[in-house]
């Protein structure tokens, strides 16, 4: 079975930190639009990531 080690690590970290992250992101003390701010960061990261890929790596 092919296992991408980096992906496995990311999935493990995600599972471990998801509850803490969930609490942090939906904290009622902060601005209601905080999840969207974080979301925007993900969009920018995804944009940067696809820029650095080969033109056609399929």
């Amino acid at each position, binding site marked *: *079975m*092919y*296992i*991408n080690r980096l*992906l496995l690590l990311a999935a493990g970290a995600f*599972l471990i930190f*998801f*509850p803490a992250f*969930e*609490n942090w*992101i*939906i*904290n*009622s003390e902060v601005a*209601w*639009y905080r*999840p*969207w701010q974080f*979301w*925007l960061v*993900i*969009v*920018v*990261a*995804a*944009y940067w*990531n*696809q820029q650095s*890929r*080969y*033109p*056609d*790596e*399929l």
Partner: protein
Amino acid sequence: MSFSLAQILLFIIAYLTGLFAIAHLADRGIIPDRITRHPAVYTLSLGVFAGAMASNGVMSLAYDYGYNFLLYYIGVVLMFVLAAVLLVPLLRLCRLYQLASLADVLTFRYASPRVGAGITLAMCITVLPLLALQIQAVATSIQILAGGSSTLSPEGEHNGLAFLFCVIISVFSMLFGTRHVSAQDRNTGLVAAIAFESLIKLTAMLALMLIAVFVVFGSFGEMEQWLLSQPEVSAQLAQPMRGNNALILLLIFFAGAVCMPHLFHMAFAENTDSRDMRAATWGLPLYLMLLSLPVLPIAWAGIRMGHTLPLDYSALAIGMVLQSKSVSAIAFVAGMSAASATIIITTLALANMCLNHLVLPLRPLQVERNQSIYSQLKWLRRALICVLILAGYVLFAFLNLGQSLTQLALVAFTGTLQFLPGIIATPYWPRGNHYGLLAGLLGGFFIWFLAMLLPLAGADIPMPLQILLGEVATGNDRQWATTAIVSLGVNSLLFMFVSVCTRTGAGEKVAADICSMDDLPRPTRKILSVNSAAEFAPRMAGTLGEHTAQDEVERALEELQFSIEEKRPYALRRLRRRIATNLSGMLGPSEAHRIVESTIPFVASPGDREREDFYLLERNLEQSKPRLTGLAADLNDLRRHYRKTLDNLPIGACSVGEDGEILMWNQSMVRITGVAESDIIGSLLSSLPPPWSRILEEFFHSDASMRVKTEVTLPQGNKRWLGLHRTATDTLSNNNTLIVVEDMTDVQLLEEELLHSERLASIGRLAAGVAHEIGNPVTGIACLAQNLEYEKAPGEIQHMAQDILKQTERVNRIVESLMHFSHSGARASEATLRSVNLADCIDEAIHLLSLDRGTKPAHFDNRCDRELLVVADSQRLLQVTINLLSNARDARRDGADVRILARADDKRVLIDIEDNGCGIPAEQQNQVFEPFFTTKDPGEGTGLGLALVFSIMEDMNGRVSLTSPLVDGPYPGTRFTLQLPRGRYEMDYDL
């Protein structure tokens, strides 16, 4: 404030007509390609994922689960941000093998038509609640708009309009979704229309947000103030989900990104460019971010206004409360655009799946030879679209608003979650097989059916399942989470257990390897039952009809840029694969495989072994270079290094398969033959241009392991000499032959030059003797001429004249011998093998040697049979015998004879030239035939004599060998043995 039914109907018709117009303009190319083919259009079309759930259902999801409503979007966002995990491998597969649906992919991967049928059936049942959800959202919106009431009546009195909506949507799907029979051709109009709908949906939602913020609340700051004054709303928003329900919800929507047929269809079937997928990895998250942003302000505005409608319809409620028709219309457009796009694409994708995996396998198309299957396929697909939309409507009518949009969505999404194990195993677990997949699917789907779908219709969960699901199954609203995790767990366990316990077929293993992430397609080289591309269409006409078969062959040829005259086995295999792939896009992989297997089968290969197609393997490796990392990349670099070394070798090398197919052709072969690698790879040796086909084919089929010198006459008329060698390469169960071709033209020309020089040197050595020999008769002629002056008697004059003639004849004979020997035109290329009298040839050599006055006179004892003939070139045989006899003369003991003997059998003649000299030591015997090797004193020998003898004998298909010593003692002697084919009278051989 309310709308009349006629107004609503007109509104729906106007909106959908606009949609028709956009699709039509895009299809006709009036909307330019740079717009319709732009990655932004593709990204927007993926917004089809956000159906009525995004415009309506998500409001109540936010109310129930707070911020966790975002998981509905985040699941898809994660899938696209991590596109390399599943989307890229799936897109690669879909592109390579023209797979247009989840059922196509899984059928291809698990190499079983039963998988396709099972997945399609399960998908139809699973997605029906999603269709019902869309119709319910539109029907309820119509009811609210038409009734203007603050509550909903369950009688569904406006279902007629909902039905009309379904009819219009069906017409649109049939017109624009079935334009291309092949699912791989992009439906430009459809994609443009769906992208337009996504844009409308987003614009409407953002407009509603602005209305909520600036009209309902007054300003952004006031909205925040209101939020601060409503701690229960903030608390509701920030409530965490119980247990791991948030993770399960995320998993459900994450799976939905590839399992839901409408998103799969837009992501893979309507996408032909990886550039689009790359843009979507950030474009779709951005789109969904903007689409989700208005949800909370709209929901809060609804709460502030205190309307009594279900939360799903908060946007409509704002319009109703504000008494604004335009606001209501915007809210309705948002919902309708979301619902219509989802219905259209979902039914289209399901129709393709049903056609390819249920209809065609059960009832193969019946076509006459002169018919086309395209129209039949179109109409079947259209009928299926109608049936599916109708089924969705029937479920909606049956439920009669009894379920919330969120409940319907969760049922549908939890159902599609059951396909996730099979999809993940496609690139990551080659061990999984179709038994495991079907067992897992059956188990998971069965639990889902009993615990989620049946309760939707009001039935109770069976008792054994209640025990399995525990207390959560007793009717509370979190049962979806437990059902999802239990059904998925049972599904995965069954899948793994059954896969490990059962045997995987050979075909399935190959498919698993092809789909595997860490593997490349491993093409096999089989022998086809057809010999040219022209034979394909007639073979397939019986199944596809003449026109379709012709069209498909022409299409594949055009895509591969081959001509109809193509005969190369490699090209024909590629053509077959391309046709199968194209048919797969039209009929699904199993039906395409069946048709191609039955019409263009492979013939059993020698030994029934699968042989690797190295050329394709290399091509795949070359194309996959950017994907290879770590050790694989290093190995590939090593392969490229050796490949380059092989290519740049100064010696030609070509690899030939058992069936004579050329598998490798290096640059030296290109230089020697003038045949480009791309023109010949994958062809048979026989298809090489003359004279290469004859030479290489003869050598390939012969038993000889080498041919020292083969003369080749090129079409331009010039000649080349080649050395051919062969060796068997038994690698990866392939019995290939490596043929090495050495261009020996330069060596040959040099040898000829040397031969000529040596001949001239011999003539030089003979010069003194010749002068002496000619001098005697000339002196005699001079004396006779002087006497003739004074002679009067006629008898004496006649006698003297005869003497002069005799002397002249003698001179002539000497000159002729010299001319004969020094004949400068006797090059190898012009030499002719003929039957030559051996004894005469040796006599002539002896005569020439006797002219050499610089050496001690010797007696040559020619004991050859006077009638014995050999096949040789007389000039060259003369050179050989002169060289050997002069060596024997120089080596012999003083006063001893040089003996020449000949013995013959039916085929060959052996000529022994013996001397009784000092012999040749054993350690020098291997060197005597090498150029410039001599044991004579400096200045006495050139060291070329025996090398030339060896070379000439090879040219004349003969051999030379030596034996020494012949006897014991101080003069052991040496024997050179020449072997030549035996000649017959009236027999000529052309070299």
